[in-house]
């Protein structure tokens, strides 16, 4: 549904994107994850025909973004970083306007606007000018605006940036609903949790190029290590650390505050049982034990820092 090869763009001497390869099958959700300035927005703007690539090509919904921009625009929806609706119009007027510009007949545009206002919980504010809306309401309206033409491909550029946690959760719910309806979604975010929550696959970009690509689970597995968190009576801590040394994947750390150890491990079946058994055999009581899986934060730090200097060896999963 979205297919890009070697997509590149420079602004003057600044190279925003140096060669993006992307493949998003129909009905799936891909997340472009990266820090500020990684080139996420540039990528979306090129795929949505707002920017012309300097090099490479991209096809969206079967059409080339440069040669057949108009056909692409007929099939996409775009919701940007900043809510792009008219502040001085009411929410309803905004949606009817965008509906008509999306080639819906006037009556259909009105019907669909009412439907979307209800779906995004904006009926009560429908007749108020948008400048009176809260940040969350604006984002919901902006998202609704991108859905009027029933797009088969939806681009969401940092849809929840700047929202409070409650509004963010609400918006995630809405986005999951769209995915369930079969929309192909390309989402950009700098929030790992968002990528983890919504995306089927994640493409980590940094410094204008892809540094890793895979499912959230694959990326976590790439980082490899999980952590065992153990609470043990203080007197037995040193001895426990010595015993666990030979089971650990890295140096065992004593956590400040006393009584706790952090042991890096390669996750495998029966690992926790084995550890408890070994300690029990040595006469050490375990008060508490927990296995912490690698988070996307670990992945993010590992991929956007370390691999930026070591090069993309074996990074291309596809």
């Amino acid at each position: 549904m979205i297919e890009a090869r070697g997509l590149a763009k420079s602004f003057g001497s600044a190279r925003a994107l140096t060669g993006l390869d992307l493949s998003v099958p129909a009905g799936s959700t891909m997340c472009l994850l990266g820090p500020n300035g990684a080139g996420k927005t540039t990528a979306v703007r090129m795929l949505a025909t707002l920017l012309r690539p300097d090099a490479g090509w991209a096809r969206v919904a079967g059409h080339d973004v440069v040669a057949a921009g108009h056909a692409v625009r007929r099939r996409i929806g775009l919701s940007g970083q900043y809510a792009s609706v008219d502040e001085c119009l009411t929410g309803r007027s905004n949606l009817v306007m965008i509906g008509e510009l999306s080639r819906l007949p006037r009556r259909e545009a009105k019907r669909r606007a009412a439907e979307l206002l209800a779906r995004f919980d904006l009926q009560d504010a429908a007749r108020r000018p948008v400048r009176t809306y809260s940040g969350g309401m604006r984002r919901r309206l902006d998202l609704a605006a991108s859905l009027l033409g029933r797009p088969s491909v939806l681009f969401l550029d940092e849809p929840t940036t700047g929202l409070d946690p409650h509004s963010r959760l609400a918006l995630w719910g809405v986005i999951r609903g769209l995915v369930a309806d079969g929309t192909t979604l390309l989402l950009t975010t700098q929030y790992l949790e968002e990528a983890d929550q919504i995306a089927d696959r994640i493409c980590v970009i940094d410094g204008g190029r892809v540094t890793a690509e895979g499912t959230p689970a694959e990326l976590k597995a790439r980082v490899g290590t999980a952590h065992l968190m153990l609470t043990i009576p203080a007197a037995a801590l040193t001895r426990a650390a010595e015993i666990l040394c030979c089971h650990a994947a890295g140096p065992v750390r004593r956590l400040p505050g006393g009584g706790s150890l952090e042991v890096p491990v390669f996750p495998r079946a029966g690992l926790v049982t084995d550890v408890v058994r070994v300690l029990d055999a040595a006469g050490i009581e375990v008060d508490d034990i927990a296995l912490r899986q690698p988070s996307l934060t670990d992945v993010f730090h590992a991929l956007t820092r370390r691999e930026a200097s070591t090069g993309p060896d074996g990074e291309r999963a596809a």
Partner: protein
Amino acid sequence: MSASTGSQPARAGRIAAWPQELRWALTDVRVLTWRTLARIATTPEQLLNVTVQPLIFVLLFSYVFNGAIILPGHGNYREYLIAGIFAINMGGTAQGTAIGLAVDLSSGLIDRFRSLPMSRAAVLAGRTLADLAMTLVAAAITAASGLLVGWRIHRGPADVLLALGLALLFAYAAAWAGACVGMLARGAESAQAVGLTVIVPLSLTSNAFISTAHLTPWLRDIANWNPVSVLAAACRQLLGNPDPAAAISSWPMQHPELASALWSAALIAVLAPLAVWLYVRRARH
């Protein structure tokens, strides 16, 4: 949605789709004209430009300059003045268009329009048409306040309509000039600054407030060819107001109606495609 045009239309299919494309483009223009005007409902202060400002201009100049400026032939200054203010208001349309488009560009709304399957020229066409409608309000206020201070129309409805038509044509040309400025400006402030640096000299090197007869020759030539002067002279002639410029042996002052129509048509022919080109170019970066 995609049923009306296939993804790979044959040549014949593409030609057959033309009227449909044209209908859609006209819908886009209608929707965007409506959008600009609908904003007034929630932000009526946008009307100050076209209501209070012309009123203040008429009152201010008719009381301040009356008596200070003696026209060649001793015509009534207030009768002379109104067509001048009228012409300046028409040119002022550019300012609203430039600022409005600059604001839209910086708000991200234009990005949304660009991501829609709509006509690219419609954003500009809708804006300029809406601004033309606003200018009509300014024209009405100028005329009403003119009547209040003693200005009169001395000709029949056909001449009045012709004067109005020439005025609106010039206002539309000015709106397209404003569209070019809006596309080039970095934001609302710079659009306003550019607008003022063009509009003020253009208004003051004209016969709007004074007669050009006593100006230094090179300045007089500029003033006589200035489209604001030409429109003002045309309106004065068509409305039967004092028109000392009729005695000036400069071609545009001898044929102000024709000169005004030619000026406006030429400006639109150049500036409208230029503005659309700037809009599309800005999309690509």
